[in-house]
């Protein structure tokens, strides 16, 4: 049986080569100047007002989107888990199928929908309703984040809801709890791993995105992701970009730690 463990060997090699070492590279670049000498400057740049603001807005928008995703996803997951739908067809419908339309195109389509003379406003116009003026604002970015990351919240919650034995809910009702008490005392605590995993799976990409703010924010709202992307792709200051990435990784590592704490058995994983 010992040789079975060797099967993980290629993976270990791969993960070290293409996950661990690259992260160390970021670390190296983040802590050095262009000439290769050690410095804290790149990380200290986070404290510059504009970078701090980009980070602050990114945190705020990511937080808001995560909360909205959670509020939208939980009822959805509950309805679906009670419906007895075939799990694979459900995943396909909300998760796999839309992906065959490219992510950039889907996000771009929101521009067409939201613009001042766009589809939604044309419809509102015909109905003589006040127009919706959110394109190029943080609201549009939040919408884009919710739209793109909602499935990542639904799936883990749905999975953890499906794992709850129907008898457990019956038992709580049997012991005198009404529907609301049952939800608060039984269903909700039992889905905590799913919720936590959903939160991190939405929060991290929302925090670090640069594409959504690019496409829906009209270039007026700079998130930390945009700052990093610019550092690499426009001003070619890799050291600064790496330094900012290191700061970003603090949040990512914090998320991982939270997941590890609440979801020890990997119960909340989406897949």
């Amino acid at each position, binding site marked *: *049986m010992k040789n079975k*463990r060797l*099967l*993980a060997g*290629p993976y270990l090699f791969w*993960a070290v080569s293409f*996950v*661990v070492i690259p*992260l160390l*590279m970021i670390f190296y670049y983040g802590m050095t100047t262009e000439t290769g000498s050690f410095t804290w400057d790149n990380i200290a740049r986070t404290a510059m007002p*504009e970078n701090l*603001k980009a980070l602050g807005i990114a945190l705020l928008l990511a937080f808001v989107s995560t909360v909205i995703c959670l509020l939208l996803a939980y*009822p*959805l997951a509950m*309805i679906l888990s009670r419906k007895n739908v075939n799990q694979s067809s459900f995943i396909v419908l*909300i998760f*796999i*199928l*839309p*992906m*065959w*339309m*490219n*992510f*950039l*195109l*889907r*996000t771009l*389509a929101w521009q*067409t929908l939201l*613009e*001042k*003379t766009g*589809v939604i406003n044309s419809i509102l116009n015909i109905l003589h309703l006040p127009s919706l003026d959110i394109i190029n604002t943080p609201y549009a970015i939040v919408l884009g984040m919710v*739209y793109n990351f909602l499935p990542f919240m639904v799936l883990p919650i749905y999975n953890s809801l499906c794992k709850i034995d129907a008898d457990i809910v019956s038992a709580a009702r049997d012991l005198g709890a009404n529907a609301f008490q049952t939800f608060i005392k039984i269903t909700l605590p039992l889905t905590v791993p799913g919720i936590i995993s959903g939160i*991190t799976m939405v929060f*991290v*990409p929302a925090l670090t*995105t*640069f*594409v959504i703010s690019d496409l829906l924010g*009209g270039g*007026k709202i*700079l998130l930390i*992701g945009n*700052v990093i*992307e610019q550092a*690499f*792709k*426009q*001003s*070619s200051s890799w050291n600064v970009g790496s330094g900012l*990435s290191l700061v*970003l*990784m603090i949040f*990512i590592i914090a*998320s991982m730690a939270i997941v*590890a704490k609440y979801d020890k058995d*990997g119960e909340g994983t989406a*897949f």
Partner: protein
Amino acid sequence: MIKKAAEKFYLALIFILLYAPILTLIVLSFNASRTRAKWGGATLHWYQELFKNEAIMSALYSTLLIALLSALIATFIGTAAAIGIQSMKRKFRTFYMGLTNIPMMNAEIVMGISLMLLFIAFRINLGFSTILIAHITFNIPYVILSVMPRLKQTNRHTYEAALDLGASPLYAFFKVIFPDILPGVLSGFMLAFTMSLDDFVITHFTKGPGIDTLSTKIYSEVRKGIKPEMYALSTLLFISVLLLLLLINFSPKDSSQKARKQTITRRSRALAFAFKRVIPTLLVLAVTAGGIYYSFQGQKRSKQKVIVYNWGEYLDPEVITMFEEETGIDVIYEEFETNEIMYPKVQSGAIAYDVVCPSDYMIQKMLDNGLLAEINFDNVPNLKNIGQRYMDKSREFDPENKYSVPYCWGTVGILYNKTMVDEPIDSWSILWDDKYRDNILMQDSVRDAFGVTLKYLGYSLNSTDLDELTEAMNLLIVQKPLVQAYVIDQVRDKMIGNEAAIGVIYSGEAIYTQNENPDLEYVIPKEGSNIWIDSWVIPKNAEHKENAEAFINFLCRPDIALMNFDYITYSTPNTAARELIEDEDIRNSKIAFPDDSELEHCETFHYLGDEADAVYMDLWNKVKSK
């Protein structure tokens, strides 16, 4: 009942949210107008065009090939790893699962960047293989996480029973364990395939020249306006997958109660069958067919090649085909969005481009940093077609006319909608007019935004004076609430679609937008503006210098320059080509070919040095983050 209705309503809302953009894209694919901002009637034109568009088809093929290969390799490595991890002690298992979680939890941008740094540090040429490696890396965790739960459920006793009955461990594994975990393996594969298909960020950072996936192709098109063929392709992909699923899901209905139960199982079995067999088989077939087709194409190709790095949408694709046919030199074509994106790629030397098309100030910077090779003009006899006026202008950044050949030129000005703006516009001051709050489109690049403002203030747009720059910055901050959006080439679509009243735009775009929307007018403000030249240069590390010169020479041929002018509508410095323009209005267009008097106050951008660049960047970031 009310509860049921509310549930249905809620589900409907979510599905509208999820599918509204998809529906929009499908509708756009039938739009006869080239721009998404205008409905020009229904057409199937783009579906025909799609199959003729080699760039999109090859992006599609690379996308599918990368998705398939990365999913396959990830499935092998991941499944093996899952089996290995499952048989480990708890301590090691935790370690491995932590390792697996890193790519899952890590931000895409951090992962993309980290891989890019690795590839460049180890001098691995960015290209197909680096994208593949990156995709495999983020796909493996999906496979592991799909297989692990299955493995946990697998009964160890059945495996031992098989051993007991004389099976070898390998045989026992494939006969007993593998069928048990197969659904997990397959769903891992599917998931990996889809993730790879939809990825943009990581591909964005790890791709190299001559290769585009659909995502990166779309991203480079975003700024120029998405080609409608792309909508058609996405619609086809989406509809075919959807149809396949519907076909499986809706076998003829049986009315009798008893039969229903059977149908359901039959359906789900069919669905499972589809996912296990049909879809993968179709994909393999498609990709193999594509592979044969492309390798067949490849055989025709000679070993001669030239790697071209150009702005997006800045060359008629037909020209490339003609060049390849006439010279037998294979063109590997890559696009960039801004000078600033192009520079580090050339500088790092990770990719040996043969011919690049930067703007004036960037050419100066590249020259200063010794990145350019002298062009052997004996190989470029068609240089004679380029007007002397433009060669003289070029001396500002290429003092001896040794390193560059002008390709396109133009001005930066104001495009405005006559129906939305009352007064005649002749000054940059309109950009600070509160009347047009939320109706102004500003350029989203440092030099253009500052250039406009500096000119408005009466300074040089090459100013390095901190006071002048600070003044400009403050003015830009004042302007920010009035600005609807900071964009680059999207000004075009937005102005055509009547989204804004005023936009700062390159003169080349003006002609196109006027054709689409006659209400638009272009003006060079009286304070003066930027006159720019994009020229072809050859980097020092070019490996096919003579081919590059042949390419430049080809582009200088009047008929070819005319083709490009018709395609991109940017002013050509090729006077011989200008003579060939049939439409008199365009040949004498003030927008395309302004008089010298209009250009009196116009300047070209200069390279200001790294320090000044950093100052500009800092000030710009302050504007953007206000």
